[in-house]
């Protein structure tokens, strides 16, 4: 899909609203549509450049798969010694793990390069992005688009597949729909964290690692059941930084487990709203960050 779009668009890279496309020729300027189109073009360019070295791509994709599988390996090693962790069995934890693995993996794939923003500010290459007639967020998000990050998504799929085959869940249509819903809203929540983290790097150039503790740290946290953690930590990721809505709150409904905090049942269906809210806030943070940017001019 992305390939087909960009193949035609590539003839007119400077002319986003060219008149030979009837569907949007006279459409008003839309940052979302233009941004998305630019994003797909830049991402496709990086994919083509990656595919120039196929063997290298295969190795790094496998490396990504192996590296991200280590988290599950740690869980397997734990379960070689115990039968339950925090009252949860291995398949139940695999379910939590698989959902967050896919959700975070998709976001990491889509905009995982956001943490390079500080470097761009430091070496002055952000200025190049500012003069192009394309939203900066789209350019930064697609920068160095790394297809190898499919490795994380793949291992998440494997683990979720294992969980779904082994688990004995009373499936209802709602519960079935919960799974794609969790993945998509979880992706939105993590996406908001990535964008907000990028905005923070306008202020703190070298602080890319702070972002890692919320993105990679957050996904590590969510791989384990909430009963493992202190109540205050669970409250923090439920009410302050709502990472719990990626999988804990909705997945525990699917598993038929009570959430350690006293939440009404309908909260399990709110992740899309939470995701949208997070994205709106992150968008505001991004605007504020971008507006505060002052180029050195050199």
């Amino acid at each position, binding site marked *: 899909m992305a390939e087909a779009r960009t193949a035609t668009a590539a003839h007119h890279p400077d002319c986003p609203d060219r008149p030979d496309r009837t569907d949007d020729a006279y459409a008003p300027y839309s940052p979302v549509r233009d941004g998305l189109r630019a994003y797909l073009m830049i991402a496709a360019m990086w994919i083509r450049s990656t595919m120039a070295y196929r063997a*290298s791509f295969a*190795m*790094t994709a496998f*490396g990504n798969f*192996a*590296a991200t599988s*280590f988290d599950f*390996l*740690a869980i397997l*090693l*734990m379960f*070689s*010694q*115990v*039968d*339950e*962790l*925090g009252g949860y069995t291995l398949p139940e934890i695999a379910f939590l793990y698989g959902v967050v693995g896919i959700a975070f993996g998709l976001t990491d794939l889509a905009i995982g390069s956001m943490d390079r923003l500080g470097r761009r500010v430091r070496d002055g290459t952000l200025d190049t992005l500012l003069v192009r007639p394309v939203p900066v967020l789209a350019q930064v998000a697609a920068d160095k688009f790394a297809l190898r990050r499919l490795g994380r998504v793949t291992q998440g799929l494997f683990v979720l597949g294992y969980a779904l085959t082994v688990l004995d869940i009373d499936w209802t249509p709602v519960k079935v729909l919960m799974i794609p819903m969790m993945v998509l809203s979880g992706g939105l929540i993590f996406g908001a964290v990535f964008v907000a983290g990028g905005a923070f790097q306008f202020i*703190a*150039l*070298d*602080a*890319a*690692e*702070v972002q*890692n*503790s*919320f993105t990679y*740290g957050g996904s*590590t*946290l969510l791989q*384990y059941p909430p*009963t*493992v*953690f*202190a109540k205050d*930590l669970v409250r923090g990721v439920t009410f302050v930084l709502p990472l719990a809505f990626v999988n804990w709150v909705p997945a525990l409904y699917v598993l038929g487990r009570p959430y350690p905090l006293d939440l009404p049942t309908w909260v399990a269906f709110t992740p899309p709203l939470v995701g949208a809210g997070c994205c709106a806030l992150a968008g505001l943070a991004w605007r504020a960050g971008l507006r505060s940017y002052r180029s050195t001019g050199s």
Partner: protein
Amino acid sequence: MGAGRLYAAVAAGGFRRYATYRAATAAGVFTNTVFGFILAYTYIALWDEKPHLGGYDQAQALTYVWVGQAMFAVMVLGSNGFEAELIERIRTGDIAIDLYRPADLQLWWFAADSGRALFQLLGRGVVPMAFGALCFDLALPRDPLAWLACLVAIALGVVVSFAIRYIVALWAFWLLDGSGAMQLTWLTGVFFSGMLLPLNVFPGALGEIARLLPWSALLQAPADVLLGEADPLATYGFQIAWAVVLLAAGRLVQSAATRRVVVQGG
């Protein structure tokens, strides 16, 4: 300039180079602390389920978590140290300049790396450990000698860590692109150092094999010395043996590699 002073200057340079980026150091400390918290809770759950797993009680297991976070940067278990730079110099040919400097290649990089390790021990090791001790009930020794013994084990661990990464970097003379080799070393290092889980929790033969490999000198060895679970002298012997073997192997690879270098004039 005497050889000792030269390498001391290089080591000081390595220290100051990393000390320059204070915001990055603070961010690293923050990340190590967050990961320490997450791991600590999972270890509490694990040791609740099975007390005295691997011979540790819960306080010892928690101490292990925070020692691991403190060693994360020092032993280069998470990112790249000097080897990324050395590989780049080999690829671009800048290595030729390094080779006609009146300094030994291995010693030069070792001095720079030990300066880095010292900074990261102070800058990124102490604070997460202090946080851990404040928030959790750790099994920290009261005897200053035990801390000193642990410091020696850390220093020897740094030598082993350097020796491994030096060999990996020199592969670039043959491979040119070192990213695959670095990734492989990183994966092996995370697994066999005990960063994932203490090696004494590994099941059966896997645990025994892992304890014999050089990576156990990086984290498991200093942690066990601090926890009083290992005899310091035997641990040092193990670490020194691996350091000698790997440094000598690095020398051999170095002499083979430098014979390959053809310096283009012009």
